């Protein structure tokens, strides 16, 4: 492990919904400053739940972190509200975009800036900056958010998050329902934001190919547990990952055989 405190460190958390449904049992993840980390897993494996545990949005869904701790820059966040999290610089971009359909694109972006109580001049500057990063939505600024295409909505959602000037963005399934070209474009923007603006990213994805291409490290999560961790390079060369998430390395493998990494213990506890 590195000597510098990681920007985000999730230590062996468990999450319960409605006090009984256990969604996560033993998830540990670290994100270093300025890093892109990807979180891979199938449907229902607990990616969204992990992100919401960090952004503290779990409570609104009657979920709670019942064990383990989450630290942001070395500070425990268990007592923080979603508002506090955004204020200190952690913003989640929700799965399925969730942009405000009855607000215009520009109003959508503006809602992201409220948290900083900024004066109108600096808000104006930030708007221009977001438009420069997300070229596509510039012409659509007066359109209603609900009428934008899926790709544009994803950009609005990310731009809205950027308006809060975050240090860490939790990006939940940005590729959902998008064409391969657009996915590439979105990840290029993520890369720019990461390299030029120094924003760290925790990206949850099902599309392992693309996620591992842009990330530095990756985690694989299954049934609420981290089952594999490694650098992006290691993971993309690992057979099991290839078989499960990248459309196959070796031919004709039966599914009961490929899940051999299940036998391994969760890697870090």
């Amino acid at each position: 492990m590195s000597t510098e405190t990681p920007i985000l460190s999730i230590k062996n958390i468990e999450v319960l919904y409605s006090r009984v449904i256990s969604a996560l049992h033993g998830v540990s993840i670290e994100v270093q400053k300025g890093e892109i980390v990807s979180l891979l897993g199938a449907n229902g494996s607990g990616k969204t739940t992990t992100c919401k545990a960090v952004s503290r949005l779990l409570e609104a869904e009657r979920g709670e972190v019942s064990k383990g701790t989450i630290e942001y820059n070395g500070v425990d966040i268990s007592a923080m509200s979603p508002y506090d999290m955004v204020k200190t610089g952690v913003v989640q971009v929700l799965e399925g975009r969730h942009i405000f359909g009855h607000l215009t694109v520009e109003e959508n972006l503006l809602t992201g800036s409220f948290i900083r109580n900024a004066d109108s001049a600096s808000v104006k500057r930030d708007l221009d900056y977001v438009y420069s990063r997300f070229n596509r939505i510039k012409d659509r600024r007066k359109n209603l958010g609900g009428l934008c295409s899926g790709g544009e909505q994803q950009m609005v959602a990310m731009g809205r998050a950027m308006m809060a000037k975050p240090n860490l963005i939790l990006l939940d399934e940005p590729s959902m329902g998008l064409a391969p070209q657009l996915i590439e474009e979105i990840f290029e923007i993520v890369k720019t934001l990461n390299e030029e603006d120094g924003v760290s990213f925790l990206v949850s994805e099902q599309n392992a190919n693309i996620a591992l291409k842009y990330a530095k490290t990756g985690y694989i999560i299954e049934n609420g547990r981290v089952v594999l961790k490694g650098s992006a390079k290691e993971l993309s060369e690992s057979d099991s990952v290839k078989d499960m998430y990248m459309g196959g390395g070796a031919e004709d493998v039966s599914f009961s055989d490929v899940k051999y990494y299940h036998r391994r213990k969760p890697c870090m506890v």
Partner: protein
Amino acid sequence: MWEGLPFFLEVLVGGLLSGVMYSLVAIGFVLIYKSSGVFNFAQGTMLLFAALTFVSMTERQVNFWVAFSITLVMMVIMGIIIERTVMRPLANQSLLSLFMATVGLNYFLEGLAQGVWDSAVHGVDLGISNDPIFLIEKFPILGLDIIISQFDIAAALIAGSMILGLTLFFQYTRTGLSLRAVSDDHMAAMAVGIPLSRIWAIVWAVTGVICLIAGLLWGDRVSVSFTLTAAVLKGLPVILIGGLTSIPGAIVGGLIIGASEKLGEIYLAEIFGGQGIEHWWAYTTALIFLMIRPTGIFGEKEIERV
């Protein structure tokens, strides 16, 4: 020309003017419903509480504006307290329990208002003249020989400017934008750091202010007594016609109910051979509208899936 026309118009205009007040009450409902999905049944009693407080002070020789300001501050504080103690612990509960909570709150406030003040009938005088206006004298060009109550016009003007102010506030300010964001998507609003409870507190406070204005206008027209709580029963069909989530809907719904109530009272009462049909008539009108459009005229259609 139909000889009954001037009289018909007189009734219609009277109905529309009183409809503006219904719209004002209805907007209070819509604001709270939009932002938190709560149908605030306690609004009628909040109205009574405000009017009673104000009257009890002016009757003790407190200056009009002093009494007004004190009541205003009190209603704002009351809204915030309600949000803190009742609505916040119940966030994310089912619509039914939220509604029932406001019904319980209504009962509580009823007891409190009458316990602190009294249950006598009081008069309010806002100093607005009650004389009728003969339209033919003032505006001969229109050629209409109808009578309109001056008070109705003043009340409609006050209520109307209040509605206009609220609409502008929610369209153009930061708070307004946050409120619209919250009503669009709670989760997303939280994700960008809009503090839901602060928005709710603001909305409840604004509703408190609306209750004060509506309570005074209504109190001047009929008198301040327990019957004021019926305001909630007037507002209900209005927002159901307009759709629970729409401010324009509340305005249009108010006008429809106001007009149909007065017209029904005059023209339908003969057919049914009995007075006092306005109570169930408003609800039947609402029912007819709902049968055609189950979520009101401007209501958003809910997407349902298993």
